[in-house]
């Protein structure tokens, strides 16, 4: 195996992630605007927003601690790492051995803890409220996410993401009811984790209904830019993960430029379709009351458990 090449590949994955993530968010916003019969913002709007925010001065609250200032970097680093270990362009990146499904959940959790702490750091009521809600969602979503991974692991008999994706990508055509269940559960978890409708509304201006936005109300300037960027990265990581687990076709096994030429267009195409579907889901569903969110995630958890049970019952050889 060409180590140098795989390092390049890994680097390429990171760069793709950093660049493509705002684009994906922009695409989703554009689709939402179309579906809502509104004039769509330009596709590259998000880059301009980031650029603007990076230029702006950071305004800090008087009682902000160092945690508040460090949190955006942590969150961004976590999300960048997460999008690096999710197999997107190749199933054998050098970070492959580290790309454990459970570790991935841990990385997401770490980011969440930091954003919640930062939200509470200033002591405003909205920040605390957002942090509390975020932790509520997180504590309900994580088990469901883990269950989805376990189902995939049971099928492929490994918790390593690259092995899972390899195994799922190479199987002969066979219908896996369990994967269908897990896919629905994963979609529900992704919606909740990425602060999308029906759990949260990313574009809301009403503080009382906010979850994610409420936590970052106090951020400005480059801090805000990093957090927003991290949010797009999270969406990107989740989308790639979903695609890798449930539509793994097109991710090449080996390394090499030829493979890359296949992988990149496939990824772009799948992300475009996935983004459109996300926008569609958001358009047709209404935001749930916050007290219904546990029910929503409970359903996701249940589906994930069902997926595992169905796998054990229907898909194990006797």
């Amino acid at each position, binding site marked *: 195996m060409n180590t140098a090449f795989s390092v390049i590949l890994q680097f390429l994955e990171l760069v793709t992630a950093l660049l493509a993530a705002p684009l994906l968010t922009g695409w989703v916003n554009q689709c939402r605007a179309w579906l809502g019969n509104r004039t769509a913002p330009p596709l590259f709007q998000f880059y301009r927003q980031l650029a603007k925010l990076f230029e702006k001065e950071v305004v800090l609250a008087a009682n902000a601690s160092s945690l508040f200032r460090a949190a955006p970097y942590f969150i961004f680093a976590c999300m960048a790492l997460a999008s690096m270990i999710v197999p997107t362009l190749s199933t054998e990146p050098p970070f492959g051995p580290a790309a454990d499904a459970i570790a991935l959940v841990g990385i997401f959790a770490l980011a969440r803890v930091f954003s919640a702490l930062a939200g509470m750091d200033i002591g405003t009521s909205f920040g605390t409220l957002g942090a509390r809600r975020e932790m509520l969602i997180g504590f309900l979503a994580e088990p469901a996410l883990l269950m989805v991974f376990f189902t995939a692991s049971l099928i492929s008999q490994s918790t390593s993401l690259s092995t899972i994706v390899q195994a799922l990508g190479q199987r002969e055509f*066979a219908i896996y009811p369990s994967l269908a269940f897990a896919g629905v559960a994963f979609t529900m978890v992704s919606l909740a984790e990425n602060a999308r409708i029906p759990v949260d509304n990313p574009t809301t201006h009403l503080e009382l209904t906010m979850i994610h936005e409420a936590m970052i109300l106090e951020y400005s300037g480059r801090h805000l830019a990093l957090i927003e960027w991290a949010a797009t990265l999270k969406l990107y990581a989740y989308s790639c993960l979903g695609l890798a687990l449930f539509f793994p076709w097109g991710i090449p096994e080996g390394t090499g430029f030829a493979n890359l030429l296949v992988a990149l267009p496939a990824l772009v195409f799948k992300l475009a379709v996935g983004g459109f579907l996300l926008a569609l889901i958001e358009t047709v569903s209404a935001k749930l009351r916050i007290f219904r969110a546990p029910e929503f995630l409970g359903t996701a958890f249940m589906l994930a458990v069902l997926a595992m049970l169905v796998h054990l019952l*229907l*898909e194990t050889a006797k």
Partner: protein
Amino acid sequence: MSTGLHLDLPFYAQVINLLAAMLLLLSFAMLAQRRILSLINLFMAQGVVLFASTAVVAAATNQHHLYWSALITLVLKVFLLPWILHRLIRRLNVKWDIETLINIPTTMMIGLVLVIFSFNLALPISALAGTITRSTLGIAMAAVMLAFLMMITRSKAVPQVIGFLAMENGLFFAATSATYGMPMVVELGIALDVLVGMVILGVFFFQIREQFDSLDIRHMEKLKDD
């Protein structure tokens, strides 16, 4: 393959497994459903799944009488019974939300336990079966249990009846998919019973409402031993 992707089932068996999983999913959806109209639609979707699975079994095993039972399923469970239910709720004017006696997440968790229970119960039996889609027996049993749970946790008459019909769906699925169909005369009889039962229940709803001005069966807890 070496990775555990060893599904060497024939294609039709995979389709039936998928349909079984969908039946289970629909049962859970019914358990979680708050609105009575959606409940009827879910029941209809169950009917479609049953129709599809029966038709697939019929095609795969080349048993002609199963085509007939697929047809009966289509007519009865996809068109007739939902139509009667729709008419009933329109005539009775009960489109409001369903009240549950236990909150829905708890119900779902109980449902999950029931599924595990029925899978375990069905496991030794499935192992003995000669049919290739034997694993679906566990799912059918789970669907029956979930419908039972739905009947227990709903306080209104109409959802209870839908639960009752859903239970019959689970049984029917057990009969077609796990055992490749009962003799025709039995299936006809069962279909007739379900239909007559539905009509009688329809009459019954009107009687209940006339008497209690509501279809809430919590009004009907007077008969006790004291």
